[in-house]
């Protein structure tokens, strides 16, 4: 029931709805992300793409539908009470365990400002997985080297450029050895000349076979690495498919309209 299913898709959203009070922000989102693929989510601001991403990591609670990661229902446990099928809400500790398998990169980096780059990357493995400090340090420096920051280990976030901070944030998420990486507009807060270095790291990650869902406006990046492009508008998936279909030959007028504006 709660065991991970190796044959299930990495992520599966089915009829996901989300309300903020009376504001109906997600209106039945369906999405399947197969293992080892990169899904790029496009859409105008306010279309619910960031909200959908945050729901996968349970930073937002969904109002209807269900989300599965590796076949496991997120946030709830299915059971029966008095002969009826019911959902039991998971304990925050169980939710934390589910979250630990999903890495997330934020638009505004959200690095811990009181810790060095190295300490930022070491924090979760030590505090959550119980890895020894020595081992965590070794792994963290290897990860920071992988994102091209081996000379910035002891710098505080305030001493790093936006692009460097975002690369530390990616290393921090990777330190938990996640099965899935979520990127919430990872380059939107960056100066134009710094976007490339972050996309480069993400491109390498995609090549290494990481399953990724990327909310972005970088059409070029989508073209290069996306196995699947999803276009969202008004809280629902309007169109999805390979790049050749959604970006090069969109059939929905809203997709065509959006692409005409950003390309």
């Amino acid at each position, binding site marked *: 029931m709660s065991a991970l299913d190796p044959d299930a898709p990495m992520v599966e959203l089915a009829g996901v709805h989300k309300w903020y009070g009376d504001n109906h922000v997600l209106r039945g989102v369906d999405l399947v992300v197969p293992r080892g693929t990169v899904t790029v989510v496009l859409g105008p601001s306010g279309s619910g793409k960031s909200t959908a991403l945050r729901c996968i990591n349970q*930073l937002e609670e969904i109002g209807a539908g269900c989300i599965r990661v590796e076949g496991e229902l997120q946030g709830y446990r299915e059971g029966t009470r008095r002969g009826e099928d019911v959902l039991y809400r998971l304990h925050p*500790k169980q939710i934390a365990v589910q979250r630990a*398998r999903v890495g997330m990169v934020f638009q505004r980096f*959200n690095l811990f400002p009181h810790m060095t780059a190295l300490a930022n990357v070491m924090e979760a493995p030590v505090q959550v997985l119980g890895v020894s400090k020595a081992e965590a340090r070794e792994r963290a420096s290897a990860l920071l080297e992988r994102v091209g920051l081996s000379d910035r280990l002891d710098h505080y976030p305030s001493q790093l450029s936006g692009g460097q901070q975002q690369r530390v944030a990616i290393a*921090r998420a990777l330190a938990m050895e996640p099965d899935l990486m979520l990127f919430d507009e990872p380059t939107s807060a960056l100066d134009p000349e710094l976007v490339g270095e972050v996309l480069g790291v993400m491109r390498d990650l995609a090549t290494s076979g990481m399953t990724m869902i990327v909310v972005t406006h970088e059409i070029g990046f989508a073209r290069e690495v996306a196995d699947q492009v999803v276009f969202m508008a008004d809280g629902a998936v309007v169109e999805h498919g390979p790049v050749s279909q959604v970006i090069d030959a969109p059939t929905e007028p809203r997709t065509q309209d959006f692409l005409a504006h950003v390309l």
Partner: protein
Amino acid sequence: MTTPTAAKTPAPEPQRIHAIPVRYPGRWISAAVVVVLAAMVANALITNDVFQWSTVGEYLFSAPILRGVSWTLILTVASMAIAIVLAVVLAVMRRSSNPVMRYVSWVYIWFFRGTPIYTQLAFWGYASVIYHNLSLGIPFGPAFVTFDTAVVLNATRAAILGLALNEAAYLAEIVRAGLQSVDRGQSEAARALGMKDGRILWRVVLPQAMRVIVPPTGNETISMLKTTSLVLAVPFILDLNYAQAAIGNRLFQPVPLLVVAAIWYLAITSILMVGQFYLERYYGRGFDEHVPRRGRRGRQAAINSAHTTADPSPLDGVTP
């Protein structure tokens, strides 16, 4: 053209500006006025016989005064330590999703901030009269162990407890303000990494909140140092203020002994301020680029590091 550096002649060194500075006579006049006033104050202090500076010198390091200083320090440190722990608990309770916790914390702060510290200290002094015994056991049921309140809550402990419980109410609000000042994205990022709430508070939120908490807490500590003089209400009679008053009354010379106490309070405050400086520097790490620099350069560095301006150094070197 392929090697542009080879043929290039060095550009002529630009001539630097050496302008005559603007004169500010007002600055000189105001400085002179202040210096004269300061000299008048010093003169008034030194030449007035009532201060009895020889008596001040005689008693400054006398045994009863030194004992008073150490008791005042003990009261300050012990009550602040208890108050800080209690304040963090109260502040976390205020933010709890459990309404009972929130309400209890609110009522505590309301009561202990709303009644005078002198009244509270007097109450703790009478506690052993109001409740003769304290017992551990099942609520409303049998007791396993019983203590004599007068023994458990002697004057020293009553004084420390009274000061601590009162201070915790004020500090709780300071801690709460600190916790609120930490960006929500911080706990969100920690949650996304799979950290649990307790760890997030302890490892991520509280260390950043300390930057906001330390300066007003330093203020509170200095205030506490002097509030200890109210423990007479308990009555606790070993602190610095009681010690100086006892000697002053015996000699019929209150003023020199007040000066003795003032010198000691000032000295301790100065030491506390040094401690606060280092605490602030420690918790400012990552925010203030390690060594706090003063003036425009430091400010500009802070603005740059905040990455809120498009061009990192549009004002560097510009003097208004």
